[in-house]
């Protein structure tokens, strides 16, 4: 065989014209337009386009975060109906009073009817000092927010804000308020912006997600195992597979209507706890945490099935063969090899499902989430509200300060979402490491 002479051609030159030094080869090489430079240039243009789309995504995300943070902090003008200084007892200012003194203040300033109602809601003996203090602020001092500014204005225009404050609100005080605080997370809901918190909504969301996962995870993974490992490839099964994909695209409000019809109405004895004799006195019917969790469970079921199917399909066939070759049964193969290897992918799908479910508002509105409850859900049969419902409700209020509350609640929602996902990711990594 003759030696190939192409190596004499300088690298980097495109061969478009016959090269006389290549003699006989020139003719055939003329048909090639190697043009490596041009090919690289085209590649780098695509690279820039992809980089740009990533950047746009990141910018949009940053804008979202900044917007939320902007709303969650800032100056506010507070005007007290009753000056806290006048509520001092024997010269002890309100902030330093003991629980007993605070109760005394309440008793002396409130009408006896109002005081007794508070006692009936929860006896004062059982209330904490912080709770009583909050009652004093809510019922007696009654701060009214006259104006509020977002973080950006508060930082850049603080001079103007202070001037406006001095001119327009002589009897009020200007405070820099962080709406997103530990208190905000631990306080129950309230109609007063300053004392409102999201504990009720957080607990509602967590309870709901718990039942969502309890329904959707085993059912979804089970269905995926059946469809991938057991179901034969007939017309019915193909139809089912296609329609699971369609179900994942059904608008969530439709699931809400379904949930209302099935879980709230038809299965009311179950979802209200009547069946177990555990009816929560506060719930009139099936509009409970359980009904909401099951509805969201139906909603995320297709997501979990699809992702679990993908994960199971991605388990190499050679592993199954190795297992069968040892005389393992189908179930032994699935349990010992398919599932452990598919688990990281299944958990990724579960993360997606949690993210979807925790942010859902529409179906819960239909299923009957309460908008204003101030007691925590205590059982599957409690009335509930969730963070997105709370956020939605606050953003629709006319007052500016409720939008700040909504921004703070969004931050809480993001933190919860991230921590739930982080735990799923940790779990996934543990499975991946074992392999």
């Amino acid at each position: 065989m003759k030696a190939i002479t192409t190596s004499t051609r300088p690298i980097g030159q495109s061969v478009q014209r016959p090269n006389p030094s290549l003699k006989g080869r020139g003719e055939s090489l003329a048909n090639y337009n190697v043009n490596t430079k041009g090919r690289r240039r085209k590649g780098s243009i695509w690279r820039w386009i992809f980089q740009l789309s990533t950047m746009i995504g990141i910018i949009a995300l940053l804008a979202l975060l900044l917007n939320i943070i902007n709303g969650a902090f800032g100056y506010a003008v507070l005007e007290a109906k009753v000056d806290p200084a006048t509520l001092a007892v024997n010269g002890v200012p309100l902030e330093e009073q003991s629980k007993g003194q605070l109760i005394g203040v309440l008793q002396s300033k409130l009408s006896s009817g109002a005081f007794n109602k508070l006692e009936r809601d929860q006896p004062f003996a059982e209330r904490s000092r912080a709770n009583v203090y909050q009652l004093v602020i809510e019922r007696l001092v009654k701060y009214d927010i006259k104006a509020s500014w977002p973080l950006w204005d508060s930082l850049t225009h603080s001079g103007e804000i202070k001037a406006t404050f001095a001119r327009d609100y002589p009897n009020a005080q200007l405070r820099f308020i962080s709406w997103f605080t530990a208190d905000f997370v631990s306080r129950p809901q309230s109609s007063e912006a300053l004392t409102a918190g999201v504990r009720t909504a957080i607990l509602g969301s967590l309870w709901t997600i718990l039942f969502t996962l309890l329904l959707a995870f085993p059912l979804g993974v089970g269905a995926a195992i059946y469809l991938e490992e057991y179901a034969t490839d007939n017309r019915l099964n193909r139809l089912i597979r296609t329609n699971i994909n369609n179900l994942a695209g059904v608008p969530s409000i439709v699931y809400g209507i379904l949930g209302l019809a099935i879980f709230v109405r038809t299965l009311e004895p179950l979802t209200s706890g009547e069946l177990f004799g555990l009816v929560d006195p506060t719930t009139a019917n099936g509009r409970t945490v359980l009904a909401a969790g099951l509805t969201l469970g139906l909603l995320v079921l297709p997501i979990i099935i699809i992702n679990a199917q993908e994960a199971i399909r991605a388990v190499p066939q050679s592993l199954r063969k190795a297992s069968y070759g040892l005389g393992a049964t189908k179930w032994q193969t699935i349990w010992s090899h398919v599932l452990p290897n598919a688990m990281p992918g299944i958990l990724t799908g579960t993360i997606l499902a949690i993210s979807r479910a925790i942010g859902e508002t529409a179906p819960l509105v239909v299923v009957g989430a309460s908008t204003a409850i101030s007691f925590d859900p205590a059982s599957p049969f409690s009335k509930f509200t969730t963070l997105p419902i709370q956020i939605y409700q606050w953003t629709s209020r006319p007052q500016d300060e409720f939008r700040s509350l909504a921004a703070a609640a969004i931050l809480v929602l993001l933190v919860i979402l991230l921590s739930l996902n982080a735990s799923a990711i940790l779990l996934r990594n543990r499975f991946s490491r074992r392999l």
Partner: protein
Amino acid sequence: MAQPLPNQEKARYVLEVKDLSIFYGDFRAVTSVNVPVHRHMITAIIGPSGCGKSTLLRAFNRMNELVIGTSIEGEVLFEGENLYDPAVDPVEVRYRIGMVFQKPNPFPKSIYENIAWGARIHGYKGNMDELVESCLRQAALWDEVKDILKQSGLAISGGQQQRLCIARALAVQPEVILMDEPASALDPIATLKIEELMQELKKNYTIVIVTHNMQQAARASDYTAMMMLSANGERSGTVIEFDQTNRIFTNPRDKRTEDYVTGRFG
């Protein structure tokens, strides 16, 4: 499956293929094969690509059934009993007739677990450490991995992985070991080790091996089945000659076999 009667002398053949045809859907991949497998011998199946060697091998432990749409005609007798009898459980067939695959495919578990798992699913109650050691010793792998038993089976070299797969197959005490081109993904040194190992193993087991490598068949096997696509344009494989290996390679009866083993084919 009934055990062979103890007082009856064991037949010469462990497996006997009788007029076997294998179908993928309507496509007849293998036609009318008649081949015996001698006890404690190595039987090689050779032939060009796509002539149905692996399909025939998989018919010996019913692995073909894992592919949807396969069916067979004819019989495969194992210790005199038809493997395809409706009363026979394929799981038990695969338990008694083990398999080693073309590409090393250890489980993504520790080396120890790779071997222990098979024994455990079949209810092994003895000392697992001893079993693991004896299987690894039989597979000539013990000295190389005895200190890293807890490491992943995927962390060792390809040749070691393949021997691990052989050790894994041994752990369920099969009677026959089927090997589907076990050395095709390995370098010559690792290949040689596998071949030496086969010579050791045939003292206790019966081995059937599919190979592309004719030198390997000539070196390692006792009997050889030569497969070829049928000449009638149906593109269906069949065994055209079966004999002792040295006869196949020195004095074949079929002209096509001679052309193939001397490298004059095609």
